[in-house]
C-alpha cells in the first residue's frame, strides 16, 4: 500500500553497528511516514540514534534491515548508480559548519560543486548564474563569492551548507542539527531561511535536533527517540500540550524556560542513558523509569495510537494517563 501523499515512508528500519562488545543497536525498529511538504522533527539526547537514522535513510550508512520508500518508490536496495541519481532528490545539511566544508574551496566553488558532480550545466556561465541565484536565495552577499570558509562566521558557513543542499533542487532534505553550533540570534536567522525555502519549494525536511524549542518551532510532527527506539510521536502542538511517555514528560519539563511567571515543576530522571550494546528486548527506558514494572523489563513496547495521531510506546501509558 503506497500512499502518494508521503514523501518518505520508513518501515521497521534497523541499523546495528558491530563493536568489540557486541552489536550496537543505533536505530532499532523505527517506522514513520512524512507527508510531502512537511517537517518531521526528530528529538532525543546524544546517543539516541537520531543522526544515524537520518544518515541511514540517505544510505550514508548501509541499513541492517527494514524498508525505505521515497516518493512512492522502494529505495531500500538501490544500486550505486541509482543512488547517485537519487541524491539529486535527497540532500543533507550537516551540524558543524566548521568541519563540513572544504577549507580550500571558495564559497563559489563550494556551492557549484554539486552542479559539477551531476554535470547539470553546459557552460561556465550557466554555473555562475546558478551559483549567484543560490547565494542570493540563501542570503549570501555576492561579494563573498571568492571568500574562503575561514573568513566567514558560523551563520554564513551554515548558509553555504544550505546552498549546497538546495542547488540541485531536491525535494527532501535531512537537516542534522543545522543550528546547534550557532548563536541564538544567528540561529533564528537560519531557521527563518529554512522555513522560507520550505514554503517556496515545497521541501520536505527531517529536522534532527536535541533542542526542543527549535523543533517545536519548525516541525509539523515530532518523533521522540530514546536509545534507538521511537518512544512517542505526535503533531508538534499536540506533543507539547500532552506528553504521555514518562521520558518525553521529563525531557520537556527539563527545558529551562524564559517565562518566569509560569514555572513548571522539573521532573528529574535518575541516572544516565544505558548502553546501546546488545540491549535486552525490553523497554529501553525502563532502568531509569520510576513507573517501570516487571513487564517493562521483559517485553518491548510497540508504538500504539493512544489518541488520534498520537503514538506512544509504553506498556503503562493508558493506566498512567487515564486514557
Amino acid at each position, binding site marked *: 500500500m503506497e500512499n502518494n501523499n508521503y514523501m518518505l515512508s520508513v518501515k521497521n528500519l534497523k541499523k546495528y553497528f558491530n563493536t568489540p562488545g557486541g552489536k550496537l543497536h543505533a536505530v532499532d525498529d523505527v517506522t514513520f511516514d512524512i507527508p510531502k511538504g512537511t517537517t518531521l522533527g526528530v528529538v532525543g*539526547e*546524544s546517543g539516541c540514534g537520531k543522526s544515524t537514522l537520518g544518515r541511514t535513510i540517505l544510505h550514508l550508512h548501509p541499513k541492517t534491515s527494514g524498508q525505505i520508500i521515497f516518493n512512492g518508490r522502494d529505495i531500500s536496495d538501490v544500486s550505486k548508480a541509482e543512488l547517485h541519481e537519487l541524491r539529486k532528490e535527497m540532500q543533507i545539511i550537516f551540524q558543524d559548519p566548521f568541519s563540513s566544508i572544504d577549507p580550500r574551496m571558495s564559497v563559489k566553488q563550494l556551492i557549484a560543486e554539486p552542479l559539477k558532480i551531476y554535470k547539470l550545466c553546459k557552460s561556465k556561465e550557466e554555473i555562475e548564474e546558478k551559483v549567484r541565484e543560490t547565494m542570493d536565495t540563501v542570503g549570501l552577499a555576492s561579494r563573498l563569492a571568492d571568500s574562503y570558509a575561514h573568513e566567514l*562566521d558560523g*551563520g554564513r558557513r551554515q548558509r553555504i551548507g544550505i546552498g549546497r543542499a538546495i542547488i540541485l533542487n531536491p525535494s527532501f532534505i535531512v537537516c542534522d542539527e543545522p543550528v546547534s553550533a550557532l*548563536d*541564538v*540570534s*544567528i*540561529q*533564528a*536567522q537560519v*531557521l*527563518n531561511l529554512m*522555513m522560507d525555502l520550505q514554503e517556496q519549494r515545497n521541501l520536505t525536511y527531517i529536522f534532527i535536533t*536535541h533542542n*526542543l*524549542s*527549535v523543533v*517545536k*518551532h*519548525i516541525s509539523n510532527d515530532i518523533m521522540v527517540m530514546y536509545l534507538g527506539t521511537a518512544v512517542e510521536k505526535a503533531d508538534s*502542538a499536540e506533543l*507539547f500540550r500532552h506528553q504521555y511517555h514518562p521520558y518525553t514528560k*521529563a*525531557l*520537556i*519539563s*527539563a*527545558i*529551562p*524556560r*524564559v*517565562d*518566569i511567571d*509560569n*514555572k513548571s515543576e*522539573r521532573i*528529574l*530522571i535518575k541516572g*544516565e*542513558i544505558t548502553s546501546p550494546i546488545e540491549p535486552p528486548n525490553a523497554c529501553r527506558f525502563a532502568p531509569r523509569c520510576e513507573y517501570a514494572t516487571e513487564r517493562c523489563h521483559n517485553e518491548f513496547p510497540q508504538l500504539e495510537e493512544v489518541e488520534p495521531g498520537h503514538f506512544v510506546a509504553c506498556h503503562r501509558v493508558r493506566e498512567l494517563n487515564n486514557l
Partner: protein
Amino acid sequence: MGENTLLSVEDLVVKYFLRTATCEAVNGVSFTIDKGERVGLVGETGAGKTTTALSILDLVPNPPGRIVSGKIILNGEDIRTKSVAEVRKIRGNDVAMIFQDPMTSLNPVMTVGDQIMEVVRLHNDVSKFEAMDKAKEMLELVGIPGERYLEYPHQFSGGMKQRVLIAMALACNPKLLIADEPTSALDVTIQAQVLDLINGLRERLGMSLLLITHDLGVVAETCDRVMIMYAGSIVESGTIRAVYKNIKHPYTKGLFGSIPRLDIESDRLEPIKGMMPDPSNLPEGCAFCERCPNAIEKCKTERPKLEDIGDGHFVACFNPLKEGA
C-alpha cells in the same frame, strides 16, 4: 561598596594585543556580586563573557591579553595589586571556576580522585590521607560513589565529568563560584541534573555564583540577577523580574525574539539583523547602533553609559524601549 558585597568589578578594560590589531574584548565593565547572590552573565559568542570571568581570577592569557585598567575587589582587597603567589592562593580557595567543556578540562592520565586531592593539598596543609578522604567526600557530595575515586576521566560520561569538575571547584569551600557555560555541552535532562546540583550545593555552602551562559532560560531558572553583555559592555542588568518583564535595551529584546518559545505560538522568529561588530574595530558610538531598530543620531557618535532607571534596573541606551514594548 556595601557590607554585603563579595566581589566588585570597577571599570574593567581588557584588550588582546594581536600582531595586526587590538581586540577590545571588555570595555569598561562594572558590577558587584553580593554574598550568597546568584548572578547570570548572558551574551553571544565573542561578547566578552569569558574574558570578564578570567579577569576575576587574573587568568587572561598574557600575552596577547592584558587587563588595561580597572579594579577587581574581592572581599575588600584589589586582586590586581597582589603578587602572583597571593593570587594563586585566592584561586581555588576564595574563587573557583568551572569550565565549559568537561571533556577537555580534566587530566586524562590522572584518576579523578587524585585530581580533586591535588586541589585540596595545594590549598590546605593536610596529609595525603586526609586529602583523599576529603576528595571522596566531595565525590559523594556531587552524587558520585566514593569508590569511583580510582577511575580515570574516560570512564565517566559528560554529565559525570562535569560533576567531577564541580567537586574539584568546591573542594576548598570557595566564596564565589564562577561557572562558565557549565551545561552547554550536556543534554537537557543531564543539564537539569547539574543545574539542580549547583543550586543545591550553593544554598548549602552559602557561596555566590556567577553563571555565564548564552541561555536565557537557564538564567531564569538559576539566578537572582542578570547582566546582558554585548561587544564587551554590559548593556542591561537588573533582577530577573525587572529585566525579563520589562525589557529596555533593543539588544535584549532581539535576544528574546530569537528564541523559539514553548509557551507562545509564533510563525516566524524575529532575529536581530546582521552580526556583532568586529571587536578590533568597534564603532565610535554604541556598538549595537548598526543593528538597532531604535537607533537615533546620538547613538552613532557617543557611547551610552549604564544608567539606573529605578528598581535596580540598569540600561545603557539613549533610546530605550518604552514600557510594555
